[in-house]
């Protein structure tokens, strides 16, 4: 091992590596290779260096598990991690100190190792690697914490900044430490963090100081909890050995608990007396669960570590980073404590909380235990904010290296870099669980859905490399003979490289002569690093003509703009606006990498009751209009001159765009058609023999006599009846058939709706939905307020990367099978997802079911192959591979879940359910499934505890709150103000959302603007979505991916109002603002930059709404405070948690 290490360690790895390497190496025979290969990679890899780095990690990750065991081992560790997580939360302060020690020890012996594993568990992701790091992490932790406290008591914001610095430090550290992990760890501490060393010692001091605020809040809860609420988070108890402490904390906390508080011990005691010991940290699973026996032992052995573990959370993910992360941790831990802590606990904590947040003075006041005993303390229940913040701090600083099987990636809310080392980036694929039960029985028992959320054309940050394009010439990609899987890193070459065995179906296939390459002594091909398809998780093949429709290479796609010119559209100024915008927008059509101009051709159609096509051939002096009135039997009146190159026909096009608004200025036509418009586009593409996209700008219910004519069937009386589902179903099957035709031609439809009344989105959306298009809806469109939003959406929609005529197939290793698909697409059979168009924002959720057993050894593989036509008309195959672990212990499953992804799946599942079942049934099914998931955990994985206690798996502790958000969403529980169209719109929207979007959609981000640091680029720390968290004296921003609300408290300082809105008083603020005024002062700039930053993160431009406290609009705003009880009957978070608990108890009894 050591030998290997040396080889690897090389420079690439940060500190952590060295340590790991030792372990890892054993696992991979190939490690030695890595070094050499790396250089090879360079060839195709732009960023050679980056690449190299990643490579090594792979090597060691596996090793982490253990030399002998290989991956499986790592899995175990992972599982353990999860529990740790929890533990870590609260432990941080106190434990922080201890961990380091443990960490150090770990390396030495197995025993230590085991501990590590725990640690890893906490981290969740990088199982084995993580553990190692953690220890160090924990150490730094303390130090880190120290600084924070200094700054102020405890504010998230503070945390934010620290991490940054921390990272830097880490880097330094990394550099330093390279040589030896263990050794390194210490040094960094010494260097960077004065605090580090102090850890243990100082810990108490600093840590306590810092934490106090948090802990205080936390502390209190426990006591009350125990009494009032049966619920108790598993984490606490278990983790903290310190059961006893808890009690201590409680009291102590409130005051200056530092010393006492520090000890994680405080929690456990109070709450779940029984389980306290194991539960908390990482151990949780281990302890309670038989599953992770290995972990258990560890736990036992190192009760103290747990605490450290907690701290580690963040750290673990990045092995290299570990060192540094610690600092950040400290704050988190505090938080976590709360969360984990226990819902059960009283509000006591709240007060503390308040204290913590300068923003919420209110809270401050009631710090005391006064709160009614019976009520669950909101601060004591798991906080999404805290989890997000922790993950961000712990995992945001180091690249996520994908070499290891079954790693849980950082949360979607965390900014992180990905290094592809054989598995697809989580930007492309995220799974609900990275550890799959080996048998279907287990899967059924757990009720945890196995699903992957795939975003095949996801946009990558500029720092990450796009998938390499591999051209295998005329013979095309190498594939398995039987299952037709594409060559990928998991294929096993045998017989000296003459054949390969398929990793999916085990069939042995001859290697084509031109592809032959010798194997090295580890059985790896010599050209391993030269070939992306052998070493990367994501890559593209150039498709041969066999992959093309009709065996002809496709022509470049076309964009057709189809503009409603009926009275409403003209009168609102929409037509003029679109025409004006198109003039400039046409210069920004998507183009392939280095091409000078876009290959995409454009065409124009206007319509009301009839369609007008335009001939904009470059040779014409004036455009020609061709009217097709035969809407019953649509056809395209011209071929040549309809679809043109923008540059060639520029003058004719701009002449046309100038004339369109004039021509229809006096129109009195109010009726429109719709289906014929799509048919026209479809026919045009057919005639041009290309794929393409239709941009339809539509204003009203299509009531003109034509195919696809609709009637107004909006009937709110149907809500909450068995017929409610009809509101989501299309009126007629006509559009389904049309969609099918569109898909066959590769005709994608993007629909921009500008309704002034019901226009039946459920029906109109069928075609866009099934063709992989998007729908944008601007109700009551007004030029002044909505044009900016619309134009931004339009620009983004036109410019974004898009593939056409796409077919996606997901192959899996034997044992599981993709059984169900959710998203905007069409399926003509049970395996192929067909999309006329697929853009970078479209996501497909795929559910897997067992059809056989899986083995822990070989794990489970997914290969998502997407065949599509690029915007330049090139036929390509994009391949994403992902390897997952398999487990025989449920605990491993629960330790490797991703709640955000789970929610994404559940929401899509439920949203599809409303098409066929009454909404109530769907809601009940959701609740029931989640209750079963949690009950199964409680029954099989959690340590024994009183039935009155609510124990949540660390990875799923946010499941209840998020689930509640899903249940309260407009689709499943509409308020009176939600229109039928809105519901249908949202239903379709959510169905193609990725995890990041669903996350913020269901649990909006609430930022206290007044807390923003005007001098930094960072966002203010988010707060929980509850009215209680709002202060009358502050301004808040809430975003959910569709809207941005700026909430202004009644007591906001005049100067702030002046700075932000340019008016002198609260009452003068106009509700009608759709943008913030541009004012030259730091606060205004900051707020606008925050808004811009948020807008930049979302695929759609969000509508900005100014909400004044106690104003009418506030009702709307409150709808998004999802932790509160909603007007439409949605439960508050606390109530829902109790409800869930009840459900779980029923299941258990």
């Amino acid at each position: 091992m050591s030998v290997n290490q040396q080889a690897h360690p090389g420079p690439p790895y940060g500190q952590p590596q060295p340590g790991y390497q030792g372990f890892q190496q054993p696992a991979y025979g190939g490690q030695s290779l890595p070094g050499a290969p790396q250089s090879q990679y360079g060839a195709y890899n732009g960023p050679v260096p980056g690449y190299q780095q990643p490579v090594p990690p792979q090597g060691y990750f596996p090793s982490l598990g253990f030399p002998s065991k290989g991956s499986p081992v790592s899995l175990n560790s992972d599982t353990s991690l999860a529990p740790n997580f929890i533990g870590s939360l609260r432990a941080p302060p106190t434990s922080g100190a201890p961990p380091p020690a443990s960490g150090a020890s770990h390396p030495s012996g197995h025993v230590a190792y085991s501990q590590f594993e725990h640690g890893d568990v906490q981290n969740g992701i990088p199982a084995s690697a993580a553990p190692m790091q953690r220890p160090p992490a924990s150490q730094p932790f303390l130090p880190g914490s120290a600084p924070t406290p200094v700054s102020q008591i405890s504010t998230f914001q503070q945390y934010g900044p620290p991490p940054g610095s921390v990272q830097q430090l880490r880097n330094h550290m990394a550099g330093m430490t390279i040589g030896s992990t263990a050794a390194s760890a210490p040094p960094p501490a010494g260097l960077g963090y004065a605090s580090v060393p102090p850890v243990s010692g100082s810990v108490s001091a600093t840590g306590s100081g810092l934490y106090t605020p948090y802990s205080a809040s936390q502390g209190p809860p426990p006591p009350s909890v125990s009494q009032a609420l049966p619920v108790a988070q598993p984490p606490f108890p278990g983790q903290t050995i310190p059961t006893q402490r808890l009690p201590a904390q409680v009291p102590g906390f409130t005051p200056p608990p530092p010393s006492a508080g520090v000890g994680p011990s405080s929690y456990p005691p109070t709450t779940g007396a029984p389980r306290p010991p194991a539960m908390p940290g990482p151990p949780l699973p281990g302890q309670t669960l038989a599953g992770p026996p290995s972990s258990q032992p560890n736990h036992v052995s190192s009760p103290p570590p747990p605490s450290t573990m907690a701290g580690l959370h963040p750290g673990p993910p990045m092995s290299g980073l570990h060192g540094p992360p610690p600092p950040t941790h400290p704050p988190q831990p505090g938080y976590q404590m709360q969360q984990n802590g226990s819902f059960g606990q009283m509000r006591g904590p709240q007060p503390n909380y308040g204290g913590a947040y300068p923003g919420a003075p209110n809270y401050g006041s009631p710090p005391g235990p006064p709160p009614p005993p019976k009520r669950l303390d909101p601060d004591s229940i798991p906080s999404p904010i805290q989890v997000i913040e922790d993950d961000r701090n712990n995992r945001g600083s180091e690249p996520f290296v994908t070499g290891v099987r079954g790693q849980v990636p950082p949360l979607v809310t965390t900014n992180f870099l990905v290094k592809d080392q054989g598995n697809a980036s989580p930007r492309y694929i995220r799974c609900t669980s990275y550890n799959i039960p080996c048998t279907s029985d287990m899967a059924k028992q757990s009720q945890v859905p196995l699903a992957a959320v795939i975003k095949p054309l996801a946009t990558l940050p500029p720092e990450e490399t796009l998938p390499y394009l591999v051209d295998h010439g005329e013979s095309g990609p190498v594939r398995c003979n039987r299952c037709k899987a594409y060559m990928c890193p998991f294929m096993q070459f045998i017989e000296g490289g003459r054949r390969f065995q398929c990793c999916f179906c085990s069939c042995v296939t001859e290697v084509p002569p031109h592809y032959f390459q010798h194997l090295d002594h580890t059985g790896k091909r010599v050209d391993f690093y030269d070939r992306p398809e052998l070493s990367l998780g994501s890559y593209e093949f150039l498709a041969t003509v066999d992959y093309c429709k009709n065996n002809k290479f496709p022509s470049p796609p076309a964009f057709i703009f189809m503009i409603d010119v009926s009275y409403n559209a003209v009168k609102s100024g929409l037509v003029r606006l679109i025409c004006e915008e198109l003039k400039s927008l046409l210069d920004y059509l998507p183009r392939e990498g280095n091409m000078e101009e876009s290959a995409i051709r454009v065409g124009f159609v206007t319509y009301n009751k009839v369609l007008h096509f335009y001939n904009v051939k470059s040779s014409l002096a004036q455009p020609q209009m061709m009217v097709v009135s035969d809407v019953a039997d649509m056809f395209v009146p011209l071929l040549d001159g309809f679809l043109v190159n923008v540059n060639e026909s520029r003058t004719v096009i701009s002449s046309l765009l100038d004339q369109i608004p004039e021509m229809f200025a006096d129109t009195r036509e109010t009726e429109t058609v719709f289906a014929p418009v799509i048919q026209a586009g479809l026919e045009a593409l057919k005639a041009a023999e290309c794929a393409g996209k239709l941009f339809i700008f539509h204003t009203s219910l299509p009531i003109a006599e034509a195919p696809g004519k609709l009637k107004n069937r909006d009937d709110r009386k149907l809500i909450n009846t068995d017929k409610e589902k009809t509101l989501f179903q299309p009126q007629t099957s006509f559009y389904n058939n049309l969609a099918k035709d569109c898909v066959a031609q590769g005709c994608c439809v993007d629909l921009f709706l500008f309704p002034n009344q019901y226009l039946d989105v459920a029906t109109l959306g069928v075609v866009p939905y099934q063709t992989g298009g998007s729908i944008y809806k601007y109700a009551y469109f007004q030029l002044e307020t909505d044009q900016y939003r619309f134009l931004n959406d339009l620009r983004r929609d036109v410019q974004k990367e898009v593939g056409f005529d796409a077919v996606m197939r997901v192959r899996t290793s034997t044992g599981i099978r993709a059984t169900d698909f959710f998203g905007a697409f069409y399926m003509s059979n049970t395996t192929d997802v067909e999309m006329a168009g697929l853009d970078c924002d479209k996501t497909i959720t795929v559910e897997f079911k067992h059809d056989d057993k899986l083995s822990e050894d070989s794990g489970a593989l997914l290969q998502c192959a997407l065949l599509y036509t690029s915007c330049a008309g090139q036929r390509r195959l994009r391949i994403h591979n992902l390897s997952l672990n398999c487990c025989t212990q449920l605990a491993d499953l629960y330790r490797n879940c991703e709640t955000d992804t789970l929610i994404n799946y559940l929401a899509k599942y439920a949203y599809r359910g409303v098409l066929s079942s009454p909404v109530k049934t769907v809601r009940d099914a959701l609740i029931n499934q989640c209750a079963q998931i949690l009950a199964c955990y409680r029954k099989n994985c959690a340590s024994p505890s009183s039935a009155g206690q609510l124990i949540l798996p660390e990875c799923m502790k946010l499941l209840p709150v998020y689930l509640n958000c899903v249940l309260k969403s407009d689709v499943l529980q509409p308020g009176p103000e939600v229109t039928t169209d809105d519901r249908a719109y949202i239903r379709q929207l959510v169905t193609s959302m990725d995890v990041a979007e669903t996350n913020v959609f269901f649990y909006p981000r609430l930022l206290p603007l007044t807390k923003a640091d005007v001098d930094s680029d960072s966002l203010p720390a988010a707060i929980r979505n509850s009215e209680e968290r709002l202060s009358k004296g502050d301004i808040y921003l809430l975003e959910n991916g569709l809207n941005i609300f700026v909430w202004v408290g009644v007591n906001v300082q005049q100067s702030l109002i002046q700075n932000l809105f340019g008016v002198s008083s609260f009452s003068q603020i106009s509700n009608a603002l759709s943008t913030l005024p541009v004012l030259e002062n730091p606060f205004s700039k900051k707020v606008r930059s925050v808004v811009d930053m948020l807008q930049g993160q979302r695929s759609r431009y969000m509508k900005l709404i100014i909400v004044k406290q106690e104003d009418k609009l506030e009702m709307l705003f409150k709808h998004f405070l999802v932790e509160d009880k909603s007007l439409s009957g949605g439960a508050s978070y606390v109530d829902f948690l109790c409800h869930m608990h009840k459900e779980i108890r029923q299941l258990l009894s």
Partner: protein
Amino acid sequence: MATYLEFIQQNEERDGVRFSWNVWPSSRLEATRMVVPLACLLTPLKERLDLPPVQYEPVLCSRPTCKAVLNPLCQVDYRAKLWACNFCFQRNQFPPAYAGISEVNQPAELMPQFSTIEYIVQRGPQTPLIFLYVVDTCLEEEDLQALKESLQMSLSLLPPDALVGLITFGRMVQVHELSCEGISKSYVFRGTKDLTAKQIQDMLGLSRPAVPMQQGRPLQTPEQPVISSRFLQPVHKIDMNLTDLLGELQRDPWPVTQGKRPLRSTGVALSIAVGLLEGTFPNTGARIMLFTGGPPTQGPGMVVGDELKTPIRSWHDIEKDNARFMKKATKHYETLAHRSAANGHCIDIYACALDQTGLLEMKCCANLTGGHMVMGDSFNTSLFKQTFQRVFSKGYNGEFRMAFGANLDVKTSRELKIAGAIGPCISLNAKGPCVSENELGIGGTSQWKICSLDPSTTLAIYFEVVNQHNAPIPQGGRGAVQFVTHYQHSSTQKRIRVTTIARNWADAQTQLQHIEAAFDQEAAAVLMARLGVYRAESEEGPDVLRWLDRQLIRLCQKFGQYNKDDPNSFRLSESFSLYPQFIFHLRRSPFLQVFNNSPDESSYYRHHFARQDLTQSLIMIQPILYAYSFHGPPEPVLLDSGSILPDRILLMDTFFQIVIYLGETIAQWQKAGYQDMPEYENFKHLLQAPLDDAQEILQTRFPMPRYIHTEHGGSQARFLLSKVNPSQTHNNLYAWGQESGAPILTDDVSLQVFMDHLKKLAVSSAS
């Protein structure tokens, strides 16, 4: 009135009428025994330089079923101011305006020289003429260019206030909106789908709220022009616009792959044109002018598929019932033709292509509506260009030689009934006492609609004598026929031309020689030919020939002088002498023979045959042959192979072709270049003479004939050789001696043989 010939000629010039019999057999039985029916060729708008129209309305007989117009044949009681209708004997009061009439103060219509008179009627709104161009764009670039130029040119020939419209078609059909500025706008229709008039009007946005019709009388809607103004605009307004539009007209952009015909939606284009006019300008004068360069290949009215490997139907296919699209297509065009005719709109077809264009199926459009049919090889030929230009030619008085929406009403005295008409018309289904139950041609009516006609348009009208054999010769001894033609003059005036003629009755048993002498064999030949062609259109060819032969034999039996079974004794009187020869040539003519002609050509020939006046018709039946030589002035010679001599230049006019044929010697001289030598200037003149004569014909004829200049042994000489009487063939060449004439390689019988047979059969007692 010296001879019947003069009488006939005089009548024709005055009234535009030629009767087969100018003395009428007085009984039904006798009439049928005459073999050639009592019939006439009527040229309703025959140009009359000496006929100033009168500016008042005609006086009508007050009997509702009669309504004959006051005419010189009426008996007038000047004192009582009464007149007796010479058809129904109703006594009518003169209208107040006629209070001042007396024997010496007669209105024009009572004067004998005004047996034909024209009234100008000031009733009703005057709608401008409408010209709707329907243009095929599936043409070769060169053709399209030529066509565009012709169309642009035509704009300057139209009356300035005429409305024009433009429909183009290829795979799609485009109706161009002419009123818009800047962007050019058109409505596009799928070329494969037949639409009802209602749908077309809806889609063009022409339907107006159907309000006023129900309450009371249908208002004359003055806003009609406004509604349709988008597609039909006054020439003077959109002259430039349309010129540009035509200039920018592109070939049909849809790709035509190898081995395919372009997709051409002629059927739908016509349907839309008809529908457009139907909805906007019913019952006004309008021309739909279809320019097509190939067969319809899709949609309703398709004639052939788009696979080039499947050739367009031939007569052979039709006989074998292999023309799969023919029936359906014909039906489609017939429906259109009837709709169009019902609204008084005519359809012209200008078909220029080397192959067939589906005239066979489309012929009814032109035939029933009085439209022109022009067939050429290319739009880039002078044949088309000049023909098209001639459509807009003006008459002696500067008026367009076209009239619209004519309504021909025929009235007969009681002893006669109307059996039918053959010509470019449709029946108006006007039943009445003078309508015969036996139909000849388009019968069962006394009124026909002729949507478009020009001064030479001629109808054949067939009568039946209904007087019973034992009844006395009808009162007055004369039978009368009145032709009343309401029409829209090219100046948009409404006019009525009334022609009243009368002929003597004669008892065939006692006065056969009178009847015989009054036989107009030219008119008879044409009338019989029309009947024959009419039958040929609907029946099998051989049957028609047999019928013709039978008729001829019967006529010869009836009027020949011979001894039974002695062919050599057979003689025909002068007034019948040419008749068998006409029939001989008729039998060989493309009107009855389809051999060597495509179905389109046959349709084309028949179309023209059914509308031209007597002179032209005769030329068609028996082409004229002139000979030019040094032996004397140009002279007409026999249409016989014997006329083809080496030292002659022949000029043949078949109506459709003008052939100049240089005899062998002449051709050699020309090749030797004698005409260029000053000393042989006379030869140059000889060569030039037929060219000048041909030019004269070319300049007046419509449609312009195909001009063929050939010589002995030239491939084009076949045009001449196929027409002449094959008196010398390879079979009898040596018998005739080699010095004269040219042998024709044919097995057709010569006139001589034909006559021999005819005589034999005529005298035979068997038949």
